Every structure is written in C-alpha cells, then in structure tokens.
C-alpha cells in the first residue's frame, strides 16, 4: 500500500513541477479562485443540476492549459467517488417528493439531489486535485501561508505530505514482523496492536526529532524558504478577475439553460 500511494504522490509532484501558464500563476491566486469556486458550487440549492454544468469549464480549462493529463485527475476522482456515492445513496429512497422537470417529466427529488451531490463532488474534487497538480505541494503550502494560514500549520502540512509514507512503510514492516511471528492466521489481540501502535508513535517521534536536528543543522529558523519567489503579476489578476466574474455570472443565471434556449430558438 505504501508503494502505490507514494507512486501517486510522486506523479502529483512531477506534475506540480511542470512549466505552463497555469503553473506560472501565483499559488495564492489559484488557491483563492479554487476556494471561491468550491464555495459557489456548494451554494446552489440541492435539486440543482443544469446550472452546475457550466462550472466544469474551470477544472477543464485548468487541466487543458496546465499540461496535466486529464486521465490522471479522472483516475484520482474515481478513487474518491465511493465516498460521494455513499453520501448520496439513500437520497432517492428517503426523498420521494416528486419534482417536475421541463417537458412535464416528474422524478423523485432524491434522484435529483443524488445527481447534484455527484456533480458537486466531481466539480469540487477535480478542482482541488487540479489545483494541487498545477501548483505542487510546497508552493501551495507557501501560498497558503502567505494568505494567512499559520506558519506552523503550513509546515505541518508539508511534512505530513512528505513523511506519511515513510511512517506507513514503517508500520507495514512492523506488521510483517508481527505476522511472521504470529502462529497461523489468528488475528493478534488488541493488546498486541496497542503495543504496535505505541511503538510506531515512539518511532515517529524519534524521527521527528532527527529531522528537526537535520533542519537546524542547515539553518532552519521557522521559515520554509522557496526557490520561486511568489509575486502577483498581470496574469494573476486577469485569471482571478476572469474566473470570479464567471462564477458570479454562472451562479446568478443558469447558463446551460440560456445556451439551450439560444440554440433551440425557444424564447424564455
């Protein structure tokens, strides 16, 4: 498990280091716009479907302009999909109130809210993944820190990302050691697991201490320095302004509906 997960993180970091118009934007701009995006998507009423669809433009545009393979984001999205499915699963059963659609069709409200949950999930998670893939964890953390996230938290986040797999590997090795010495298949008692977890904690703390002395040895003084100085340029302002205007527009008017009417020639 450790290996496959660290491979995924590895790929994410490779994409984070690419060079594209999207990568050159300041992390703060992308983080702020993405938060605004998520907030807007979540603010729609629960039966909303069609008005959400124009919002796919944001993650699509980001992926297209950043050179991150869409398949990668899609795969990550599928891995997380069961969570959204579980959340929405019972809506069609619990909410049987009929809702009338255009054209005189009626469906149970639960189906609509279920669909809406899936759409929102796809939108928000793909936007967050794309943000990470076209920024990179270190720049993202530095950006969040400059946006006011406490420094301690930003450094914590960065280190969690770096060391979770090292600790997971350690846990895996301990488990293997345990399995080799436990006689055939009988699962070990909670007491044994407790001791295992305790040891893991102690090892993690020892490692933290060693990492900290290694950081001090190289002049760490509380700041995580970065090679790319963060600066807001014209493109940042254009990016933020453009997208925020689009979000407001798409929130206030159902763009999909308008486009449909325009194309089919039906006047509202």
């Amino acid at each position, binding site marked *: 498990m450790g290996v496959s997960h*660290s491979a995924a*993180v*590895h790929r994410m*970091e*490779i994409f*984070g*280091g690419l060079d594209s118009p999207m990568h050159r934007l300041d992390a703060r701009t992308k983080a702020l716009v993405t938060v605004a995006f998520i907030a807007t998507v979540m603010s729609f009423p629960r039966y909303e479907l069609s008005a959400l669809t124009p919002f796919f433009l944001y993650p699509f545009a980001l992926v297209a302009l950043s050179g991150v393979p869409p398949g990668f984001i899609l795969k990550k999205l599928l891995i997380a999909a069961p969570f959204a499915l579980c959340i929405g699963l019972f809506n069609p059963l619990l909410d049987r109130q009929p809702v009338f659609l255009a054209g005189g069709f009626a469906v149970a409200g639960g189906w609509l809210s279920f669909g809406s949950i899936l759409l929102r999930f796809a939108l928000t998670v793909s936007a967050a993944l794309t943000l990470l893939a076209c920024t*990179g*964890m*270190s720049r993202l953390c530095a950006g969040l820190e400059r946006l006011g996230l406490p420094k301690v938290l930003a450094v914590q986040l*960065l*280190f969690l*990302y*770096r*060391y979770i*797999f*090292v600790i997971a590997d350690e846990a895996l090795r301990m488990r293997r050691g345990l399995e080799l010495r436990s006689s055939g298949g009988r699962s070990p008692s909670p007491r044994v697991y407790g001791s295992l977890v305790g040891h893991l904690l102690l090892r993690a703390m020892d*490692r933290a201490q*060693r*990492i900290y*002395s*290694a*950081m*001090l*040895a*190289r*002049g*760490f*003084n509380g*700041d995580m*320095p*970065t*090679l*790319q*100085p963060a600066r807001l340029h014209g493109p940042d302002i254009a990016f933020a302004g453009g997208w925020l205007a689009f979000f407001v527009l798409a929130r206030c008017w159902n763009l999909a509906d308008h486009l449909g009417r325009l194309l089919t020639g039906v006047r509202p």
Partner: protein
Amino acid sequence: MSHHIVEARDLSFVYPGGHEALSGVSFRITHGEAVALIGPNGAGKSTLLLHLNGSLLPARGEVRIGDLPVTRQTAPRIRRTVGMVFQDPDDQLFMPTVLEDVAFGPLNYGLAPAEAEDRAVAALERVGMARLRQQPPYTLSAGEKRAVAIATVLAMSPDVLVMDEPSSNLDPRGRRRLIELLKSFEHTRIIATHDLELVVEVCPRVLVMDGGVIVAQGPAHELLNNEDLMLRHGLERPHSLRHHHPH
C-alpha cells in the same frame, strides 16, 4: 585557516535519565585532516558528532571550531562551518524536490533564490547527482540519497564535514562511489563508521572510542593493524591490511 580546526577538551555529556555517553573526551583535528571515529555500538560516536555542530551541548568541557566555542549562541554560525551528514538520509531530505532540498540551507542563510539555486546545482554536480534535481527525494536509491544528503551539506560551503555511518545501506557500487567522493574532498573530515575498509582508504588518522572515552588515537595503519586493540573494542583488523601483496 584556523576555523578548520576542531578541538574537544574534556568533553562530557549525560543523557537525561543519567546515562553518561561521553566522559572526558579530548582531541584536536587540524585543517584538511580526514579522521575516522571507530568503536563498538554504544561507544558514544554519534553523541560526540552531535556535539560538533551544537545539536547537543556538553555537560562539562567544550568543543571549539576554530576560535569559536560551540554554545547555544554560536550554534547557528557553527552550523555553517560544520556540515553534518546524518545516518539516515531520509531524515535529512525533507523538501519536495532534490533541488529545493539542496537549496534549503543556502536559502536559510539568506542567499537570493537565483544564487541559492546556482549553489545547489554546483553541489549536486560535485556529487554527480545534477540530473536528479527535479526528482522527489524519496524516489531515489539509497546511494543517490546519500550523495544528495552530502550535496545538501556541500551547498552551504562548510569547512568541516561530519558524517555518521556514510557507507551504511549502500551497495558495493554506491559505496565505491562514496569512497572516491570522500577521498576527493579537501575539507576537514570526521567520519564515524564501522566500515574499516573505508577507513583504510579515506582516513590517515583514527580515533578509537569505547564506553564514552577515546581509548586510542593515531595513524590508521598502526591502530588498525593492532589486533589486540581492535578485538578489545569490538572491531577487527581490516582484511586488506592482513595480506600485503607487493605489486
């Protein structure tokens, strides 16, 4: 050049809990020397190394790097002079890419990003790892990690290199590269190791530690050839010294 001198006078250290890891260690290492610190597990080698850059502070006695005693106040300056390569490279490589990791030290010491990057690239070239600069450290092999860990220290242009078990976990090829690299440095080098063949190749001088004291010091060939001394302190006479083939 006096700042390349490493000197310990009557150095003692007691861990919280009462274990006395060092009791009265004294030595003097001069400019450009390569000195091996050998001895059994638990002899106090790593504890001694941690005193050389102020990671630990002595209970009694003192360490001097050049004219400067190592204290809490001088530690930040000392750490620029004394580059420490830790035993587990995973503890030392914590940034998302190799390049950022190597630039971490120079940036902390206030270099402009462009300058820090130049330094980092130069250090990576010195250890032959420049092609890996954009890789995340955890994807490297043990030998590559070790070389990059050395580069992180070189990038700070230290005068003294301190290494804890540099050849552990390396395959023979990685170890060979490391030995050639260590031989090519002109820094003052202090290397704690169990790899006595490495000592024969890299270090003309040896300090033998056991039980928190230095039990012998002198030319490597003399001490390593002393079978009695070696066995008494959990070591053994290196194979390469047993048979001298005249070529």
